[in-house]
């Protein structure tokens, strides 16, 4: 394999990893506070893909993006209100089953509303513009994804570390009960968490699907699980960790596909998960930084 091909694949991998990182943040934030694997997160990401298809059909693209993100955020908040809030004091298994149920519901709803036939993802001409450096070529979205991911993570870190809301989030993730006693409106904190997670999933969805061209009701399942693995890999509750995990999984997966082991690219993620949980359950950065959002 020539150096150009390797570079080309790495570029694709980094771009995929950026989208994974954005989704992984949603998992890591929710797990940090509720100790819940939000199985529905991958399906929120899938639904965002469909929202984009429909809003782009009726609005120019800048408005369409805003509309998509807004609907995605509202959906994330609504899911939390309806499916997770009533179970807050139940055993963790019930909440997890509820999350699986929501995921099942969203998939079936998408199959019903949009049929199981893959739908073409609309192209935003600006994002698809091709840049060439030597023999390398990349569309704007490939280059934009990692940059945007890093910018968003920095913004999120500022939000978490410097603002009052962020402080409330950190308190809630440290100790749910005590935070409540200290007068923190825990429901508001959880709503904010789900809003941020869904917003990032929406952005990730636009970046991911622009490169993939089609959406099916099941195209959220595997990316969702992979992003959860990314969050575990980076240390659950740790935002930069989740993004690094996302980049790592994205790059390795792309390279495996490039080497011809495409059937194993999904399996690799889960092998990574099992090995990671056994060797270092806290993840790469789980212990070092004590903050857990």
């Amino acid at each position, binding site marked *: 394999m020539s150096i150009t091909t390797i570079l080309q694949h790495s570029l694709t991998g980094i771009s995929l990893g950026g989208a994974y990182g954005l989704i992984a943040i949603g998992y890591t934030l929710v797990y940090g506070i509720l100790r819940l694997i939000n199985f529905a997160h991958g399906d929120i990401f899938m639904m965002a893909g469909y929202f984009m298809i429909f809003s782009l059909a009726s609005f120019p693209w800048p408005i369409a993006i805003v509309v998509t993100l807004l609907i995605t955020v509202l959906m994330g908040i609504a899911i939390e209100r309806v*499916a997770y809030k009533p179970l807050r004091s139940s055993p963790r298994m019930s909440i997890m089953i509820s999350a699986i149920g929501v995921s099942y519901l969203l998939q079936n709803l998408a199959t019903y509303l949009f049929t199981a036939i893959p739908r073409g993802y609309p192209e935003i001409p600006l994002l698809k513009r091709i840049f060439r450096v030597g023999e390398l070529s990349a569309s704007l979205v490939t280059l934009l994804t990692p940059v945007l991911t890093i910018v968003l993570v920095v913004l999120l870190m500022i939000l978490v570390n410097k603002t009052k809301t962020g402080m409330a989030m950190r308190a809630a993730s440290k100790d749910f009960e005590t935070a409540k006693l200290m007068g923190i409106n825990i429901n508001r904190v959880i709503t904010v968490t789900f809003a941020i997670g869904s917003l990032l999933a929406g952005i990730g969805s636009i970046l991911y699907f622009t490169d993939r061209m089609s959406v099916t009701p099941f195209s959220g399942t595997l990316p969702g699980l992979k992003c959860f693995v990314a969050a575990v890999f980076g240390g659950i509750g740790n935002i930069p960790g989740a993004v690094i995990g996302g980049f790592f999984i994205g790059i390795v997966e792309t390279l495996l596909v490039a080497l011809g082991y495409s059937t194993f690219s999904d399996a690799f993620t889960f092998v990574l998960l099992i090995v990671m949980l056994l060797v270092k359950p806290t993840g790469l950065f789980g212990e070092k930084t004590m903050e857990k959002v």
Partner: protein
Amino acid sequence: MRRSRNTVLSVISAGVFLAILYMLNLNRAGNGMLISIMQKSAIFALVAVSMNLLNGFTGLFSLGQAGFMSIGAYTTAILLIPVQSLDGVYYMNGINPGIRALKVFLSALPPWFQSVYPFVALIIGALFAAVIASIVGVAVLRLKSDYLAIATLGLSEIIRALFSSPQLDGITNGSYGLNKIPAFPKMFGGLVPPIITPFIVSAVCITLIVLLIRSSYGRAFMAIREDEIAAEAMGISLFKHKSMSFIISSFFSALAGGMLAMYMRSIEAKTFSITLTYDILLIVVIGGIGSVTGSVLGAFLVTASKEWWLRFFDQPLELFGWDVPLFRTGFRMVIFSILLMMVVLIYRRGLMGTNEFSWDRIFGRFKWKRKKVQGGGS
């Protein structure tokens, strides 16, 4: 007195059920759909009970059922595909010569062996899954609650990826899947016709699981579910019992997977995706987590409504010349998911909660009602 009454009632209802099955067998052509739905329910009942053993009775939230089912299904299918159909099945990549030699050797064995061979194949598939579970269990069972769930889910995906990988083409036929799998065999030299076989196998397996749950091991499982630390303090070896529950659950899941292969006649790796595990989880949750009879009941209800009673949701419906909106393909599954969410959120115990079906309870309910009426009268 009451005990003997209960036994008599149970025997009678089992007899009635068997009689219905034999009657269906007489008119197979007319009842094709009903028979096939009931067979599928029986198979799913076994998987649901085995999942319940792990999730409901031992408290290990595992989502790896589909993976173990696929191990059983593939092993059984490979062992059972007739030698003369092998070339037709593996038309793309050819079959591994070792497996062909084994199958040629097996097909030359005497007739008595051929009549039990399908069951041997089922058990070999199940044992294979049990061996894999015992190896994987060492690593995976150290994890707790949701991490265990995601790790077992990953495991089932790894198994699926392996089965559909081109490297195993000669054995699993890669992404083409396997077909021409023989249907259910008859049992006891024709005393039990083929269509009733899955019911008998499922019933025997579920009885074995119930016996296990009622034994001291079962009590240990439940102790672990209630409180791991307390159970350990009472001298229950956590690892031993957890891996035992995991291995046995995988064994029976794989056995049901083998039956599913016989039921569907053709399998591919896609059949055993995460959705299959979710479907089984749905049955367990609706039936009640921690109730064997709940799971069995749930399997029959869910399968029947999915394949039969709620079919009309998927057809366009016209009432008095008015096209009822919403009724079209996929609506049935939406209704199903909403039902599941309602069970999860509102009616959390499911059909049976952690109770088992018992005649005493049914009679008790009648008595209670009668008493209430009397109380109102005086």
